[in-house]
């Protein structure tokens, strides 16, 4: 037995040390950590157990039998983050470029199955040159096996993807199918076809970072939810994000004792300007209302006209969707619609109540938006909120016009509780536009059309402005002073936290994509 254990230990050591100094330094020279270092830094200390370290490729073509490596260029296993279980894989770029062959894919698929069966989050650490060409179609089919599992696990367990090197070609879809994508500036790159192919096919010259770096995906494409300076910063964000999430769709998010009470905050009375043309930063409201320092913004640099993220309200995790008046007046456009709908659906999957903070003039007008399909993209917001059965609270802070009112505030469409500030302006459109249409003839016939318009606008605002007409219809449940926001939002949440709602039984819906 002693001999056998010695042999086992030697084999394990060989695998663990397979990287050797040369391989480790080749990775470090690129500014990257090794696959093992990543696991150690991400997880709680000494919590990792590897699964299938001895697996290796069965293919012998093109000299693969001589390049064979135990582990097949990916480390898979399970460990803990903040004491809670996670399953993960970490691709090893120093072995065969982290390329994905048949057995590499099988190892990943196995981890996915285990994560699903045990109801634990899945963390995918990508650093791979792509399909292993020597393994041909076996490699491609391997991707298929992984993507199917990503799709089936969607809405069952949280799936997080970290792009810590290249992720190119079909490989990107394991991340595309995930709930959250994290990237690191300078080392992450993600694209369907790289710069070389683009140059050959389209004649366009573009660098790796410009085509598929962290900033591109965090700011322009919206593929990445988070962009970080360093891998350590990225791991910290992953650990933080998981602290808001339940392990799976059958649990509720973790409660954390709040470190502030529900006392009123007079400073909030001064945040929302009375002049409708004056903007402010909605982060100020979020910071003042939710538990101190608890807001974790998602898609921070993408479609900044809307702010979304997770926070705690008196200890309970909530998902916040807030218009940002400071950016494009807080309008809804195609990108904002996608950002909101995706976030709302995530929250609904994982039992996270939603809080909308509303101040938006509506959907962005323009031919570009129409041609690019604002109708089908905007419809995603309606679909996502109508479908969601989690508690949903609205706070109308200022403007709530037209389509944006329907999507984000309409009682009969989706919302359990609608609160409003005295500054709320709820209407089909702004007063000026409304008056210009309703009284078109009268204004045209007036001696001084501009003066008449102003008069009518004032009359219109007196009658229809503010929250009280909507409140008289029962479409606003309560009007609150800004200073009381934290307490009122919490009480609204508390009153519907255990709400049960059902939806018609069906195979699945058909969200407009």
């Amino acid at each position, binding site marked *: 037995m002693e001999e056998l254990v010695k042999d086992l230990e030697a084999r394990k050591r060989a695998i663990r040390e397979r990287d050797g100094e040369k391989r480790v330094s080749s990775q470090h020279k690129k500014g990257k950590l090794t696959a093992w270092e990543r696991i150690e830094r991400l997880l709680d200390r000494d919590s990792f157990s590897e699964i299938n370290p001895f697996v290796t490729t069965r293919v012998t073509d093109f000299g693969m039998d001589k390049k064979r490596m135990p582990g097949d260029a990916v480390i898979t296993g399970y460990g803990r983050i903040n004491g809670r279980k996670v399953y993960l894989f970490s691709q090893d770029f120093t072995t065969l470029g982290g390329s994905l062959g048949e057995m590499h894919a099988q190892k990943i698929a196995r981890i996915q199955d285990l994560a699903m069966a045990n109801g634990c989050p899945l963390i995918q650490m990508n650093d791979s040159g792509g399909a292993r060409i020597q393994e041909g179609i076996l490699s491609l089919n391997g991707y298929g096996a992984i993507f199917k599992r990503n799709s089936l696990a969607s809405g069952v367990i949280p799936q997080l993807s970290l792009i810590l090197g290249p992720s190119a070609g079909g490989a990107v879809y394991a991340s595309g199918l995930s709930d959250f994508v994290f990237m690191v500036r300078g080392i992450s790159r993600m694209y369907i076809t790289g710069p070389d192919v683009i140059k050959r096919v389209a004649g366009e010259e573009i660098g790796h970072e410009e085509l598929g770096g962290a900033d591109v995906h965090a700011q322009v494409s919206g593929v990445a939810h988070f962009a970080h300076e360093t891998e350590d910063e990225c791991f910290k964000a992953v650990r933080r994000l998981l602290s808001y999430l339940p392990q799976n769709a059958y649990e509720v998010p973790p409660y954390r004792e709040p470190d502030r009470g529900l006392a009123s905050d007079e400073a909030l009375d001064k945040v929302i300007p009375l*002049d409708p*043309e*004056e*903007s*402010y930063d909605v982060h100020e409201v979020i910071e003042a209302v939710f538990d101190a320092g608890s807001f974790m913004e998602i898609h921070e640099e993408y479609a*900044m006209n809307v702010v979304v993220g997770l926070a705690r309200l008196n200890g309970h995790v909530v998902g916040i969707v807030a218009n940002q*008046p*400071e*950016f*494009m*007046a807080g*309008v809804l456009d195609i990108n904002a619609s996608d950002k909101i709908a995706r976030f709302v659906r995530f929250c609904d999957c994982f039992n996270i109540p939603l809080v909308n903070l509303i101040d938006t*003039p509506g959907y962005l007008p323009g031919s570009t938006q129409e041609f690019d399909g604002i109708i089908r993209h905007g419809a995603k917001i309606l679909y996502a909120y109508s479908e969601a059965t989690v508690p949903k609270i609205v706070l109308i802070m200022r403007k709530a016009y037209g389509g944006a009112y329907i999507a984000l505030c309409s009682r009969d469409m989706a919302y359990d509780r609608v609160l409003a500030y005295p500054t709320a302006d709820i209407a089909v459109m702004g007063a000026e536009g409304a008056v210009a249409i309703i009284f078109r003839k009268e204004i045209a016939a007036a001696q001084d059309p501009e003066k008449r318009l102003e008069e009518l606008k004032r009359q219109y605002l007196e009658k229809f402005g503010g929250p009280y007409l909507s409140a008289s219809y029962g479409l606003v449940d309560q009007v609150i002073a800004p200073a009381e926001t934290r307490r009122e939002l919490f009480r609204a949440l508390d009153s519907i936290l255990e709400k049960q709602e059902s939806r018609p039984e069906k195979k699945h819906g058909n969200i407009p994509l």
Partner: protein
Amino acid sequence: MAKEIKAKMLSKILEVKVKPGDAVKAKDVLLVLESMKMKIPVRTPIDGVVKSVEVKPGDTVDRNSLLAVVE
């Protein structure tokens, strides 16, 4: 440490409230932009002295255009 203040989006400069050499406190408004018919105050994130102002009223700026430097 110098802090570069940049525009977040395509917008027009409505008002410039500071000039080089002015002392400013964090959250003071440096300039006011206009975009989508909305006035947008641009604030300094740090205490310091205005080192330069790169725009004047009426200018149009794009995302990431440099507006001012505070140090």
